[in-house]
């Protein structure tokens, strides 16, 4: 469903994406109009027929299967490792421990800033374990079955230490240090902004609103777990690592650093990847380990994570605690914001983004889509004896939006303006773009207010009090919740550099090559693993080159083949990768026009590429097939003057300045006062990601993200006991949403093309996940407000709801009994 906004002239209906593109993107000539069409995906046919190529599918004869011995205590010294029984098993080749990897350096993610404490993440634990699931030894055997059996026989003697199981433990006086380098367990402590006069503003504000929210530890849980196959190629002297990753070049960097090799001595191949969602955008210890063992033993080594490993030792995310105060003036405008944020980052710092990734983003992006000039935030990353965190789709934005949207609902109540009006007064308006926010980020244009108005209208917000009251009269608790947000996407090197990372991602580089047949391959460092780049990138190139997208193929996921790049994460690919493809394709189109101009004796500027032919603009009589230009450029280059043809290839880079998609999400829920269960009745998204290259794929990204956000809001939680023992180690305990848990999503689009990308497209891969927790929590609280109750933590478990209702009833028994009857 595509709607025109009621708002500014800058926004155009999404159905007119191709026209919008033509009007705002001088770098790509308008031609075929493939951009904006919901083409079926080029990658579907082989995936649907079981012909995909995932890492676990690869097995050459003689492969050694690697199974890990992992710590079953959260904090201990390792006194001894006895592998003798394991080594006696038939079929066992070796048991590798840290002692065998003396030359292998630990992973070390670094932020070059004084508020950050760098710590090492060893590939195998050396003398000390800091979380349950930490790898201690690797068993290598001729089958995975044999290796699993042998791993059971490896005896590890632990000297158990007190575990730091949570933030409160970690910050307590006299707490045991997870790392000696950080005696107070604080690995990051930033105050990136502290506006002068903030305290005075709070003192004199008409309204001060305060919220506390927290979010449980969760994990990305891609259906394909992590996996790798490593080999040593004697012919090239390379370690060849096939791995399920979003970031092949970053894995190459990490392996090269750890193994002390030059980067060209490491080849990383990521074939089909069964989901990543951020968990695979950092480098796993197991990837480095497999490479190290393959080099050590000169054998092919295969490791395929099982789900228990995935849920206990795979990177986790999002255990955060917010205390936020907002100062509002008498007219309901936000005039000051003060936040204290704590993130439980687990035991180690992931590479390369570090354990600061959630901490920094939380403080930097809390203000979101709202106008704000006075802000103070302190954000801390606190070490605990739990599995390390890494980015997970949206990183800290689901939490910052949760905090701000709870704040806005409270402000709407306190000021009497209501949820829609208080947001509308504070959202950045059309005429304010580009808007430089209090942190210095420059928002390109969007439809912040328009998306709110449209979403509220679609949900029937105007008639909601009546609907809700009628349901209450029947004993049913309905709630409506809204969440407005801006989705900063596609950071370039300038933005990442400001974090003071020592390895700074951001640009992307693409090579677009036409072969003598007139077909095109695109080589780029992003990594599609469900996002459909083989389709969308082909649409971009096809428009530039005037050919059918079916003639354009994508090559990715091989550091030997594609230009150096940064992979797929942070909603960057359609902007950074697509931008590089657009630029390289435009260059290649120029070469084709020049060749055609020579052959048909026209000026290059008069030549257009359309429908697979080159011709003088508007004159089909002059046309030459592009296939013929390609053949001439390669096989008959003697017909062309020097400088034309002799191959057909272009390479270009794109380093984005950042794009800002926006959306409003709205949910209607029914809460059962008896069971505490929450049922989603409706879910509405009104989003604006600029030009949609392929609207079907955009909708798919939104829907998948919303499902993950609803999972975080209602179902998913990694639980630990007080000794740091994980107790959610299967899909029986860690609940992913199923089809029965979700309604049909209603997804609507506004379209504000960005001038900052060659195509007008903005990044949009994370928005669904970002908006959903806040919309659902606000809806639950709208329902619970009718009985005087509220909840501030996600997931909202049935027991939390029942307890909140009971607590409210005990506070005001008469009132609450009346209202639930």
């Amino acid at each position: 469903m595509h709607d025109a906004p009621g708002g500014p002239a800058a926004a155009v209906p999404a159905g007119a994406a191709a026209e919008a593109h033509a009007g705002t993107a001088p770098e790509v000539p308008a031609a075929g109009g493939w951009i904006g069409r919901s083409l079926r995906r080029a990658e579907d046919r082989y995936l649907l027929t079981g012909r995909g190529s995932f890492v676990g599918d690869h097995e050459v004869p003689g492969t050694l299967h690697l199974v890990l011995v992992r710590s079953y205590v959260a904090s201990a010294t390792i006194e001894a490792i006895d592998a003798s029984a394991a080594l006696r098993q038939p079929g066992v080749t070796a048991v590798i421990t840290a002692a065998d990897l003396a030359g292998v350096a630990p992973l070390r993610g670094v932020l070059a800033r004084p508020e950050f404490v760098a710590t090492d993440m060893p590939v195998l634990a050396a003398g000390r374990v800091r979380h349950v699931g930490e790898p201690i030894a690797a068993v290598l055997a001729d089958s995975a079955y044999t290796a699993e059996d042998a791993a059971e026989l490896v005896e590890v003697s632990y000297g158990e230490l007190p575990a730091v199981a949570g933030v409160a433990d970690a910050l307590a006086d006299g707490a045991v240090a997870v790392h000696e380098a950080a005696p107070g367990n604080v690995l990051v402590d930033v105050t990136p902004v502290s506006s002068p006069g903030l305290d005075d503003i709070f003192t004199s504000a008409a309204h001060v609103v305060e919220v506390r929210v927290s979010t449980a530890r969760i994990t990305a849980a891609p259906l394909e777990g992590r996996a790798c196959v490593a080999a040593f190629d004697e012919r090239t002297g390379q370690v060849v690592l096939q791995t399920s990753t979003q970031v092949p070049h970053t894995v190459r960097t990490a392996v090269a650093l750890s193994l002390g090799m030059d980067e060209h001595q490491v080849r990383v191949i990521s074939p089909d990847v069964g989901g990543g969602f951020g968990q695979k955008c950092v480098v796993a210890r197991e990837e480095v380990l497999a490479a190290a063992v393959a080099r050590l033993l000169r054998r092919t080594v295969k490791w395929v994570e099982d789900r228990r490993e995935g849920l206990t030792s795979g990177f986790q995310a999002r255990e955060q605690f917010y205390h936020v105060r907002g100062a509002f003036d008498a007219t309901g405008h936000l005039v000051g914001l003060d936040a204290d944020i704590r993130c439980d980052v687990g035991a180690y710092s992931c590479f390369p983004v570090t354990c600061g990734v959630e901490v920094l983003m939380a403080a930097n992006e809390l203000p979101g889509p709202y106008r704000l000039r006075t802000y103070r935030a302190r954000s801390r990353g606190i070490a605990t004896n739990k599995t390390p965190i890494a980015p997970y789709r949206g990183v800290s934005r689901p939490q910052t939006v949760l905090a701000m949207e709870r704040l806005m609902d409270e402000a709407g109540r306190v000021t009497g303006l209501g949820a829609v009006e208080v947001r509308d007064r504070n959202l950045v308006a059309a005429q304010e773009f580009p808007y430089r926010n209090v942190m210095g980020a420059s928002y390109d244009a969007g439809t912040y207010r328009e998306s709110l108005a449209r979403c509220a209208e679609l949900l029937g917000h105007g008639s909601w009090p009546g609907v809700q009251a009628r349901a209450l009269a029947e004993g049913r608790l309905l709630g409506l919740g809204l969440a407005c947000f801006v989705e900063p996407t596609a950071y370039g090197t300038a933005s990442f550099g400001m974090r003071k990372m020592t390895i700074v991602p951001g640009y992307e580089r693409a090579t677009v090559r036409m072969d003598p047949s007139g077909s095109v391959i695109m080589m780029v460092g992003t990594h599609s693993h469900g996002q459909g780049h083989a389709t969308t990138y082909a649409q971009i190139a096809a428009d530039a080159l005037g050919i059918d997208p079916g003639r354009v193929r994508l090559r990715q996921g091989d550091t030997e083949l594609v230009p150096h790049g940064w992979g797929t994460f942070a909603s960057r690919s359609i902007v950074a990768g697509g931008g590089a493809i657009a630029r390289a394709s435009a260059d290649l189109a120029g070469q084709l026009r020049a060749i055609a101009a020579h052959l048909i004796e026209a000026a290059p500027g008069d030549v257009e590429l359309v429908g697979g032919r080159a011709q003088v603009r508007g004159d089909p009589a002059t046309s030459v097939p592009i296939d013929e230009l390609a053949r001439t450029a390669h096989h008959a280059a003697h017909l062309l003057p020097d400088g034309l043809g002799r191959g057909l290839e272009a390479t270009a880079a794109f380093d984005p300045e950042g794009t800002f998609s926006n959306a409003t999400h709205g949910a209607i829920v029914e809460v059962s006062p008896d069971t505490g269960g929450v049922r989603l009745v409706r879910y509405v998204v009104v989003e604006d990601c600029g030009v949609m290259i392929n609207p079907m794929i955009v909708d798919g990204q939104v829907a998948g993200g919303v499902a993950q956000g609803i999972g975080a809001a209602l179902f998913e939680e990694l639980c630990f006991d007080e000794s740091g023992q994980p107790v959610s180690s299967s899909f029986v305990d860690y609940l992913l949403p199923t089809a029965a848990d979700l309604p049909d999503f209603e997804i609507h689009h506004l379209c504000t093309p960005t001038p900052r990308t060659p195509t007008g497209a903005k990044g949009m891969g994370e928005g669904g996940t970002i908006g959903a927790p806040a919309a659902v929590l606000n809806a639950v609280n709208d329902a619970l407000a009718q009985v005087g109750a509220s909840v501030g933590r996600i997931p909202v478990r049935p027991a939390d709801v029942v307890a909140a209702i009971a607590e409210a009833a005990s506070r005001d028994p008469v009132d609450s009994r009346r209202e639930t009857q």
Partner: protein
Amino acid sequence: MTDVHPIRITVNGTEHELAVEPRRTLADVLRHDLALTGTHVGCEHGICGACTVLVDGLPARSCLMFGVQTDGRSVETVEALGTPEALGPLQQAFTDHHGLQCGFCTPGFLMLVTAFLRETPSPSDDEIREVVASNLCRCTGYQGILRAVRAAADARAAS
């Protein structure tokens, strides 16, 4: 445990004689002994359903079945539903309705729904949702899968 047992199974219409350890899962037999890697293993404890195949026509989690249990039986896997050049109707519906993203869970859904539509040729939307809720997908939010199954059922009814 490491003794091997001879088994004879028919997979996608072709009979195979194999010698397998009793503990070897059907998923491993299919994937590594018969090189049918379209069947994927997502959790190894019977929840996600990525490994769903049909055993004598009924959906089964191939991670929870041993290869020896299929001795004398007939197994269907995703490789039997169509080819990239000639998709089966359910596969066509999945691409038409964007019922897959990364594609890892997809073979399990296709096998699950194949058996479902044979048994229930004219399902209600609620029945579709209930059966799709048997398996897990982390990419799509199930929206495209539900639409694809509806479309495949409708196309079947119309033909």
